């Protein structure tokens, strides 16, 4: 049943130009970064005399692309998540889901998985793009896998937050702005506490938890952070929709 809701979301996403445009633009920009990364690699490495200054091609290009991707999804996710609930609320299609034999949890999980499935196209695309380096070089697949998992978890967290903000308003644009502000704050929270890295608030930052993945390390503490983040916002969304049913 969750799958059916997710399929419905995917269908809606691909039925409007929005999904295609965002996919196309993001893939174009990732491609450009990848190309620049490969070009720069030779320029930078030929200047690096000592062996300690040299990094592998996977790490050099990968960091370039994944760093940029984790920044770009900050703009892409609010645009995609904003319509999930608010649009249904505005065009009064929510009763269609509410009167189907589905629990609220199934509806919310379905919508969440639908969006994550859509965004994972990007993650897979980046992974495949970087793997093409293997034709000329001997690349570090572990690095790509860790980064992909990190990016996927981050995108899923963004989606959960976006879904929640979409559920509290009728206006998709309001949802997008709220999501963007909240994500922006969470991303750059650690910058505000740059002088005091041990601050508790700084460790709430999403970027900080992405950093270990970016370095090729899969840390269970970070996975737990993302999982909790997602679970919290999905629970809040379920509660928000339940309030609709109770208060009308």
């Amino acid at each position, binding site marked *: *049943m969750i799958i059916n809701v997710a*399929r419905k979301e995917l269908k809606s996403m691909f*039925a409007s130009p929005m999904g295609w445009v965002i996919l196309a633009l993001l893939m174009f920009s990732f491609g450009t970064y990848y190309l620049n990364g490969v070009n720069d690699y030779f320029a930078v490495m030929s200047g690096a005399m000592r062996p300690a200054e040299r990094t592998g091609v996977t790490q050099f290009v990968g960091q370039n692309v994944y760093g940029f991707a984790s920044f770009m999804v900050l703009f892409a996710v609010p645009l995609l998540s904003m319509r999930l609930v608010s649009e249904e609320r505005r065009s*009064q299609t929510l*009763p269609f889901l509410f009167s189907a*034999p589905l629990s609220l949890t199934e509806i919310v999980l379905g919508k969440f998985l639908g969006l994550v499935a859509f965004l994972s196209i990007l993650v897979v695309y980046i992974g495949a793009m970087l793997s093409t380096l293997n034709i000329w070089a001997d690349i570090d697949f572990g690095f790509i896998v860790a980064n992909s998992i990190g990016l996927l978890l981050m995108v899923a967290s963004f989606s959960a937050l976006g879904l929640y903000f979409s559920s509290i308003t009728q206006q998709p644009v309001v949802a997008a702005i709220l999501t963007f502000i909240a994500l922006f704050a969470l991303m750059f929270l650690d910058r505000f506490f740059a002088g005091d890295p041990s601050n508790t608030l700084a460790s709430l930052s999403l970027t900080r938890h992405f950093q270990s993945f970016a370095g090729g390390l899969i840390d269970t503490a970070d996975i737990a952070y993302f999982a909790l983040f997602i679970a919290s916002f999905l629970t809040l969304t379920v509660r928000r929709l339940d309030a609709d049913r109770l208060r009308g």
Partner: protein
Amino acid sequence: MNDFTVEAIGLTRLYGGREAVSNVSFNLSKGQVLGFLGPNGAGKSTTMKMLTGNLAPSNGSVKICGIDMMENPKEAKALIGYLPEMRPLYKELTVDEYLTIAARLHRVSGAHIKKAIDLAKERCGLSHMSKRLIENLSNGYQQRVGIAQAIIHNPMVVILDEPTVGLDPIQIRDIRSLIREVGSERSVIISTHILPEVEMVCDHVQIIDKGKLVFNGAIDVLKKQRIGNKLLIAMNKPPKAAELLKIAGVEEAESVSDQLMRVRFADGATPAEAIVQVAVAKGWGLYQIGPDQTSLEDVFVQLTYQEQEAA
């Protein structure tokens, strides 16, 4: 165990202290079509939302085929097909895509989806619209898609909130016959404020006003209330009322306009023939005589008005 398909027990819904629906109870059996009547804001849609589990009642409970909507919402909802007042259509999809989603979400098994969609489209006259975007369909066709999604899983109870709004007369006739067809084997609840429609399709009527049931019964009872004991007579040269009163059985006579007179007769009396004979004999120039029916509208107004007086 009884075989009620819908049981509403003391449904009450408060909106900030104000009772939108108060203590509404009724039962519906298989093969019945129930018409929900009421002025605007009477609580028809609120009641329907509670019946379909879209709104939690403040008090009372709903059972669909014996399954409690509060305790087992998923099982109960699987037995209902619902078309809300605002059609819940995803306008960016085609008719086929939309109905496929509706069928899947209502647990139609994969192998039967195509058959279910074809049947629903055929019943609602949508077969030639399969590949069209819902957005591009006319109002009437969109309404048909709404009805199609409500009957796609062949539910035990079909609940339609104002199903014939925005349809042309031929479509209305089709939809009414569809409602009767579905109602012959399942249960249907429709809400409307087109009163003749109720008479045409429903076996049971409920009139709801200010959240309270003011009438609940078979359509025949309402019909009987309509056809009273009055005659309407049109004459070119109408006589004085006193002359009509001389005719056996006539209890009251009043002139309605220049040429029209209304005559009330005693229960069981049939003075029509006598009136015609007298009229011919005296040269009143009679050209029309017929029963004076109180329209359903009048009955409706009476019922809702009585309630206001009592309150």
